[in-house]
């Protein structure tokens, strides 16, 4: 199979970016948007850490602090991490399976262009009377309903984000199921494609549930219903059940594609095929299945029958099994490999180690009796930030370094990349590790002030936060510098990386795999295995 070396890029900004149906351009739009949201959500995190630098109220009002914690989470989850992975999916999935584009290119354009409107709606609440939502990203009633006018904006923004995610997920599934090159079977697909296929099914299963739940919040607030209003016969705890039926799989929506990215990068720099490819696929599917049946571990402190507690405790602990399979396989892939430590590999290694720390604290919290002590403390904040920052975000950064030569046609500066890596890795641990101790000592989350006994660890955490924030500004410099110029990248930028994306020139032509025909399975990331 060949590829079109002609570059038929549409002329003009509107045609190229607003009207685009090209998977690479839409992927770029998603990635740029996600990075802008990452910086916005990060700026809110800086405000939070600035206020927590010392005990006492220093810079912001408590209500504004609560708005910052809520908006930071909503923006990072729905605006940064999820769109970044959709961007990676758009760029890479068609190239990895030998497809000329996504299956539904017009819907792809729509999926992206809904997002800026969703976040404009959400962001506009910051300028309203009463301010932005301040009841936490979990939107628990009755607290969230006590917000001012922002409830309707929050709900419609979540609807739009949900529609965008569902359309994106439908497109990913339709593409993978129907647009693979003729001889590419499911078990020839790179693991990034597999993890995205499973993630897309998770998205379709849970985003509509969130949409249903927030719609009921809307009618409770504006139309006199009492779905979650105890005074009218409703049940606020029911919202928590529905929210976490969405919320727990959502965690895996953010982490499964990270597993896929790391599973592409480690074999390349260990110069060995991925160990246990099929078990990786089953482990991913196993984690996805378990994600549907563990939601109430987020709610142990609400109170439930002992049998329920035991069930959710053991079911949650079972997640450690397929996750352990994955970690074992990454380590076994590296075992006796001819390893080199380029920036994508460094970020992937940090992912494996630091995500595992987040996983371990997760197993601790799965224990119903001790969770009552951890609940709503900084221990929880430390846990989910370990899985999301050196977890999901490090995987996104690793992916950016790994595929940047393919996207831009230039190699980034390895020296700058390594500085970025060490700067980020040291600071992220200074930022989040002390939060474990704060939580164990009893510091509650979502508060702007605290007892003086927590002062030292909070100061350390804030210093780590500022350093980590600055490191990501440095990352912008590296990316912009690479896109603007630098050493030309070869088609196979890493020498002997496997995968169809490395068979097309760098930068990847605007149209790839226009001609239909079988691909050389030996060149696929995991094609050799079968």
């Amino acid at each position, binding site marked *: 199979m060949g590829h079109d070396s002609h570059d038929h890029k549409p002329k003009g900004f509107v045609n190229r970016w607003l009207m685009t149906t090209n998977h690479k351009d839409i992927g770029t739009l998603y990635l740029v948007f996600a990075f802008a949201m990452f910086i916005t959500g990060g700026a809110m995190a800086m405000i939070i850490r600035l206020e927590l630098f010392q005990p006492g109220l220093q810079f912001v009002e408590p209500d504004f602090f609560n708005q910052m914690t809520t908006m930071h989470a909503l923006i990072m989850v729905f605006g940064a991490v999820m769109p970044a992975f959709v961007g990676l999916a758009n760029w890479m999935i068609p190239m990895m399976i030998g497809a*000329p584009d996504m*299956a*539904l290119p017009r*819907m792809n354009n729509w999926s992206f262009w809904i997002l800026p409107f969703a976040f404009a709606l959400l962001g506009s609440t910051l300028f309203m009377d009463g301010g932005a939502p301040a009841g936490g990203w979990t939107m628990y009633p009755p607290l969230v309903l006590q917000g001012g006018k922002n409830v309707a904006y929050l709900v419609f923004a979540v609807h739009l984000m949900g529609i965008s995610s*569902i359309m994106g*997920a*439908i*497109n990913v*599934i*339709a*593409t993978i*199921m*129907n*647009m693979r090159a003729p001889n590419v079977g499911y078990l020839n697909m790179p693991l990034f494609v597999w993890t995205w296929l499973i993630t897309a099914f998770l998205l*379709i*299963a849970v*985003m*509509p*549930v969130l*949409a*249903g*739940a927030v*719609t*009921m919040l809307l009618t409770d607030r504006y139309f006199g219903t*009492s*779905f979650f209003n105890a005074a009218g*016969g*409703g*049940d606020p705890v*029911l919202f928590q059940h*529905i929210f976490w*039926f969405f919320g727990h799989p959502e965690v895996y929506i953010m982490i499964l594609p990270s597993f896929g990215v790391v599973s592409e990068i480690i074999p390349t720099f260990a110069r060995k095929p991925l160990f246990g490819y099929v078990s990786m696929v089953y482990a991913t599917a196993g984690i996805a299945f378990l994600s549907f049946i563990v939601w109430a571990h987020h709610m142990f402190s609400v109170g439930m029958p002992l049998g329920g507690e035991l069930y959710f405790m053991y079911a949650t602990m079972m997640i450690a099994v397929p996750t352990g399979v994955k970690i074992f396989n990454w380590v076994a892939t590296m075992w006796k490999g001819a390893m080199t430590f380029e920036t994508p590999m460094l970020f992937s290694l940090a992912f494996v180690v630091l995500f595992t720390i987040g996983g371990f604290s997760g197993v601790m919290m799965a224990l119903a009796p001790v969770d009552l002590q951890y609940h709503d403390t900084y221990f929880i904040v430390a846990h989910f930030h370990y899985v999301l920052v050196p977890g999901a975000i490090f995987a996104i950064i690793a992916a950016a370094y790994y595929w940047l030569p393919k996207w831009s046609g230039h190699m980034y500066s390895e020296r700058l990349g390594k500085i970025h890596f060490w700067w980020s890795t040291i600071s992220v641990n200074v930022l989040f590790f002390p939060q474990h101790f704060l939580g164990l000592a009893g510091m509650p989350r979502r508060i702007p002030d605290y007892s003086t006994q927590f002062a030292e660890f909070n100061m350390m955490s804030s210093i780590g936060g500022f350093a980590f924030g600055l490191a990501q500004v440095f990352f912008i410099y590296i990316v912009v510098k690479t896109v603007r110029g630098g050493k030309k990248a070869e088609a196979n930028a890493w020498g002997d990386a496997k995968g169809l994306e490395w068979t097309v020139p760098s930068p990847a032509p605007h149209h790839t795999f*226009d*001609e*239909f025909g079988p691909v050389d399975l030996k060149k696929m990331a995991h094609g050799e295995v079968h």
Partner: protein
Amino acid sequence: MDNGKQQKETRDHWHAQRKKARKTALILGVLALALAAWSVFVVLQKAAG
């Protein structure tokens, strides 16, 4: 195979695949709507009971 014939074959192939993809998308879209309705139905059922 001459170039014109190959191009037509390629076009026909991707056309057929995209048609199948639209069917896949439709099924998944209906599934998503059904799940949204189901989540509301669960709450209504609890309210009624």
